[in-house]
């Protein structure tokens, strides 16, 4: 199994709060300023420096909101250090603000005494007005709580790129590289990889490559040579200890794509991916559509219903059908999921959760679709549900989804969310040889003379045979109407409906027999308090629990991947703890499932603001539960 470049904090480390050797930097600017790019490249250099890290890109719902407006601000936060990093950090230590709006919307999050670096070139009257400043905050002392460093990055950039004779607009586009250069100097980083990247990015326009590199170098040189004053000094963050091996950074959307490809290969199947664009799920469609050589057909359907129906059709025809969307689109797939359950065809349904209800908050993260995944269908319609806890973990979860879908002939729902999809983390490149294949066997033996085809005969695990159209002698018909066991002929009789209902339920519950026992992410069995989570809350919960343990408290962290069915030992495990709290970015959905299944008095800790939990929020909940 893969794992991210994480080691468990020692009590000593965990006690430190915030961990000494970690820094949180936030780049904030106009959507047009290329902050996501800057953040991405800084992330890369951070990874190459061997630090552990976690990032949190936070961009506006609008494609390109008007320049200078507060709702047009795009931010990228990175937390990196020489110790295990599992969240993007509660509070930035450094804020780089490219314009007044960016300062206005982000300064509040900065820790007291933190460092603000501002491009005073952008603090003209017009921009100040747009951001809703009456006076210039760089002048009026209103930022006294923090260390303020300002210089005219715009002008410095223009000077730096003058030789390349770009238009003013284009020249200013290099601002982000100047800023990146300065950041690289601040944290003692190599410029080479970035320079290489710029050369390939602008291969078609060498002068742009040169200009950007010049800006990068100028920003770096500025830090090195110019007297900025004591506040901005070079900090060196040592590399974080990690399992030896080859590493790369990966976002959830990337690892999900890779995992699904791996899953199909392990099953020996071609992939059919039916999708319809929706934020934040689209990225998966985009990644897969570039990888046709891996036997992938991507189909942008007319809507989510057609997307899942086409995937069901493809599974019927012998490929592995996969469909992906976010809350509103998943809602539309409900009826078709029922068809997949009735026809007992393999199917993987990926839900990249976003803020709801309805259109809600498309670009914000949330985990409020668990109810929908586990219970959200008409009829008794059980479907296995698994949830990824981090970008790296999404890889294994995707493989697991493919395994369950094909082994049990069932749709499987894979839950991820906007935070995981966009966030990046270091990932130890998995050795694919370490994964055992689970090749699919298509039934192709015609029945004996005089006997009929039995599409609904079941094996020991209650899975029915997968018969591909094109197989002579096994012609048969399937559909969404209740069936006679074995033959699959239409049958409304009470006995058949009861038997088939029981079989569908038992088959899915049986999945528990092929999944690992629930492990502890931290702490001990029978601890006084268990913090139970699922999905992207892993980071903050884990850090908070480790810190509590560091303080000598008897707390455990249980993080559930298999939401349905749950591992056989989960019940006993939970019953063994003194108390159970369940932090979720919803109003308490996993809590419902746990209380129903195990009758444990699990208490909710909820946050529904479109923002991930902060470590301190979980810590507070732990304190509250223990006191």
């Amino acid at each position, binding site marked *: 199994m893969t794992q991210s470049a994480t080691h468990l904090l020692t009590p000593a480390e965990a006690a430190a709060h915030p961990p000494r050797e970690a820094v949180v930097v936030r780049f904030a600017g106009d959507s047009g300023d290329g902050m996501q790019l800057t953040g991405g490249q800084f992330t890369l250099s951070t990874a190459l420096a061997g630090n552990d890290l976690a990032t949190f890109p936070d961009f506006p719902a609008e494609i390109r909101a008007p320049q200078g407006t507060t709702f047009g601000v795009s931010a990228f936060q990175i937390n990196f250090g020489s110790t295990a990093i599992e969240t993007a950090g509660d509070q930035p230590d450094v804020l780089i603000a490219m314009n007044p709006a960016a300062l206005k919307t982000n300064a509040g999050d900065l820790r007291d005494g933190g460092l603000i670096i501002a491009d005073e070139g952008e603090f003209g009257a017009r921009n100040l007005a747009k951001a809703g400043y009456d006076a210039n905050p760089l002048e009026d002392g209103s930022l006294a709580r923090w260390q303020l460093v300002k210089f005219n990055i715009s002008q410095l950039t223009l000077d730096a790129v003058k030789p390349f004779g770009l238009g003013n607009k284009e020249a200013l586009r290099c601002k982000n590289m100047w800023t990146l250069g300065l950041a690289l100097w601040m944290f003692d980083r190599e410029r080479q990889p970035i320079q290489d990247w710029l050369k390939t990015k602008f291969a078609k326009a060498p002068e742009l490559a040169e200009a950007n590199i010049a800006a990068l170098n100028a920003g770096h040189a500025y830090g090195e040579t110019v007297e900025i004053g004591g506040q901005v000094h070079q900090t060196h963050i040592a590399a974080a200890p990690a399992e030896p091996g*080859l590493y790369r950074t990966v976002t959830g959307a990337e690892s999900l794509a*890779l995992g699904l490809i791996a899953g199909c290969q392990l099953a020996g199947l071609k992939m*059919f991916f039916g999708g319809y664009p929706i934020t934040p799920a689209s990225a998966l469609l985009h990644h897969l559509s570039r990888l046709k050589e891996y036997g992938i057909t991507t189909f942008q359907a007319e809507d989510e219903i*057609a997307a899942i*129906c086409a*995937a069901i059709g493809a599974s019927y025809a012998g490929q592995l059908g996969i469909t992906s969307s976010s809350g509103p689109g998943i809602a539309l797939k409900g009826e078709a999921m029922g068809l997949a359950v009735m026809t007992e065809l393999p199917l993987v349904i990926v839900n990249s959760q976003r803020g709801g209800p309805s259109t809600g908050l498309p670009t914000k993260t949330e985990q409020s679709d668990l109810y929908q995944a586990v219970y959200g269908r008409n009829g008794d319609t059980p479907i296995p549900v698994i949830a990824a806890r981090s970008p790296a973990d999404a890889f294994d979860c995707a493989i697991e989804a493919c395994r369950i879908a094909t082994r049990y002939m069932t749709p499987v729902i894979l839950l991820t969310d906007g935070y995981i999809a966009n966030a990046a983390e270091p990932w130890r*490149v998995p050795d694919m040889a370490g994964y055992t294949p689970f090749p699919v066997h298509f039934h192709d033996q015609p029945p004996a003379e005089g006997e009929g085809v039995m599409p609904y005969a079941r094996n020991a695990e209650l899975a029915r045979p997968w018969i591909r159209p094109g197989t002579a002698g096994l012609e048969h018909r399937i*559909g*969404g109407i209740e069936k006679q066991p074995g033959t699959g002929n239409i049958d409304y009789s009470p006995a058949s409906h009861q038997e088939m209902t029981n079989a569908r339920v038992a088959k899915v519950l049986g999945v528990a027999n092929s999944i690992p026992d629930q492990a502890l992410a931290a702490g001990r069995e029978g601890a006084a308090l268990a913090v139970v989570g699922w999905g992207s809350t892993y980071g903050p919960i884990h850090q908070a629990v480790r810190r509590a343990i560091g303080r000598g408290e008897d707390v455990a962290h249980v993080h559930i991947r298999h939401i349905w069915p749950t591992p056989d030992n989960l019940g006993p495990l939970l019953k063994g703890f003194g108390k159970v709290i369940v932090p979720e970015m919803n109003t308490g959905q996993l809590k419902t499932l746990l209380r129903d299944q195990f009758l444990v008095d699990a208490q909710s800790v909820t946050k529904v603001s479109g923002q991930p939990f902060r470590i301190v929020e979980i810590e507070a909940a732990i304190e509250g539960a223990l006191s």
Partner: protein
Amino acid sequence: MNEHTTITTAKDWATDQEVRWCPGCGDYAVLKAVQRTMPDLNVARENTVFVSGIGCSSRFPYYMATYGFHTIHGRAPAVATGVKLANPELDVWIITGDGDALSIGGNHTMHILRRNLDCQILLFNNEIYGLTKGQYSPTSHVGTRSPSTPFGSVDRPITPCMYALGSGARFIARGIDVHKGLPEVLKAAHAHRGASFVEIYQNCVVYNDDVFAHFTDRSVAGQKQLWLKAGEKMLFENDSKGLALDTATLKLKVVEADDPAVIIHDPKNRGIAAMLIELPADFPVALGVIYEDPAATFESAVVEQNRKIAEGKTPDLQALVAKGQTWQVEKEPRAE
């Protein structure tokens, strides 16, 4: 589809399942016509898939000894698209009704036609919701009294073939459930590469009996049925009358058969196709292949692109997961 030579008869294409339509339903005639046509198509049962939605008509696949998928209401085109993309070798038939294809399923109908997926779409138009016991449908004429419109429907119906034309269909034809011309239409639809849209006027004896009698009835068939043949004059009423374009109004008019202005049917002319599909009530009803103009099919374009892009690339999963800038961590993990 790959050639297939075993000789089959209509019987070979029928299942042992009891047919469950009302006695006298037009669906029986269509089923027979299809079963009689299959042996002439030189295709194999195992490579044939009938995909349907929900409705009386959509029960059809259970009665064909081929692969079959009775899906959900209105979604047959979407399921069929997945089937065909996953295995272009399969010969895909879609069976649907006026409610299934044009009420809940109208959007998928449009998109499968627009994309031009290679398949045959048989739309059983009985101008009513049969299975749910007789509510009016999007093809019901204004004033249709039904359980949901006890005082008569008020909304204007859609013309299926006009909808298909507007949706970009490249093959549009019409047939009648009990008419001997149906097999020919089915063969033409099958011969066409791409989405073949066939509207079949089907009589629902229980909820909409004789709604098409005004042109299907033997007594009026002559005046009321215009069977189109490519390259031949548009004649009807035992070739005594024909259609010509009125150059003043730029609309079609009825003329004597010997009028030199009688139009020779060019199935590629979209403008004329539109006029034929919407011939006024006092004209005959255009039947047979009204429009046909082949274009690249969706699945072939997809397969071709997949092939072209993959060409020369060797899929290497290990390389793929290790893509992008990487770094090596050497030191031992700290002991814990």
